[in-house]
């Protein structure tokens, strides 16, 4: 069962890392297509 818990834990940690990474990279269409002329705040 340790492998199962390790797998679940790794999935959570990877998801948290991906969330920060994606937002740092400005992945969303809102972030990519916003400009000083188009603010979606």
């Amino acid at each position, binding site marked *: 069962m340790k492998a199962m818990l390790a797998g679940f834990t790794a999935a959570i940690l990877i*998801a948290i890392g991906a969330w920060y990474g994606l937002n740092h990279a400005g992945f969303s269409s809102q972030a990519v297509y916003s400009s000083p002329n188009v603010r979606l705040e």
Partner: protein
Amino acid sequence: MGHLRTTEKDTMGTRKSGFGAFLALIVLIVLAMLILTPLTADRDGLDEAALVAARQETGGAQTREDIMARQRGQQIDDTFRRTATGDPANAAAITGQLGTLGGVSDAEMWRALRYDEASTDATSRGPATNVLIQDGGMWWLEFREDVIAKWGGWLLLGMIGVLAVFYLIRGRVPIVGEKTGRKILRFGSIDRFAHWLTAGSFVMLAITGLVSMYGRPYLIDVMGKEAHADFAHWSKLIHNSISFAFMLGVVLIFFKWVRFNIPNMNDLRWLRQMGGLFDDSVHPPAGKFNAGQKIIFWSVMLMSIGAVATGLSLLLPFRVLVFDDVFAWINGLGVLSWAGFNDLPVPLTPQEEMQYTQIVHAAFGFLFMAMIIGHIYIGTLGMEGAFDAMGTGYVEEQWAREHHSLWLKKVKARDGTAHPAE
């Protein structure tokens, strides 16, 4: 030979996977969807020649019959509108009648915008920002709700129902022979880690994906709009983020298990005997993975590629646009017209590309979920001793003898003996 046959039979496991039945159900449902739901609007009763003739009275402009045909859901050839976007090259002189329009009337200008034929510029940069009007949204919304959500839901419920009936009729597949008390290592820690990394992330992807598909029609009634808005927001964040864990898990599984999943002649025999699904006395031999599991393995790989490719396209919208080229290629084959369907729509706006991507992503998701429901069933409730393979990693020797006899022989030949019971 008789002795050998008896020995082989004794050592072969009774494989009651039911994967073949599950896959057959999926194929039947998909075929039914394709048959019952035409890809394009109904053309029955549409007299294109009469519509063209009627337009002679209006100088080529659309008529009441055109509008009524569209409202009936019939797809008419709209080339006469799509191309009626003015003629700047032959515009009247600036001092002439309507010369200031530059050869393009207001109606023609709006028509050009309507069909994305106008050359527009926008201060916001991006592939989709200068498309001011696109009319694929309603078609996509209706297809998403009337076909994908509806039939996808029935597919999942149908799978659960089939498994319930199968369980009531067949019961739990037991270990037929006497248990030895000896344990065989079937999956090591890295195998199990990769499996649970993939499984855990897949379950979260499935739940959050279903929230995206069914949240508005069902959950709002239960929890209210405010709570659902927050719930759906977090659900989407989880879906986007945990997908990377799923991708890593699938890659790990592929490299760890691909060598065990190469098809061979034993698979044909296993399939011919239906894996022993309907007969306790039939025990087709199998290696580490039987033919049913190999089908699942390769299906998972193909569906993962489809789901991940479309998922990344949705995650990073408008960067990867493929359906326009794919549709043009399919139209060029002429298969659709041969089968009585209209050609697929081209060209596509970037928004329409995303709409088709979402549909394909959802279709992959539902097929994937249906298959995994069957996988979860047979790995837990459906078969005695199966969960141990991914739980502790060790399986009862008799279980291995009944379900993976060829693999057991290899293991015993390599190790000389089995591990004692814990």
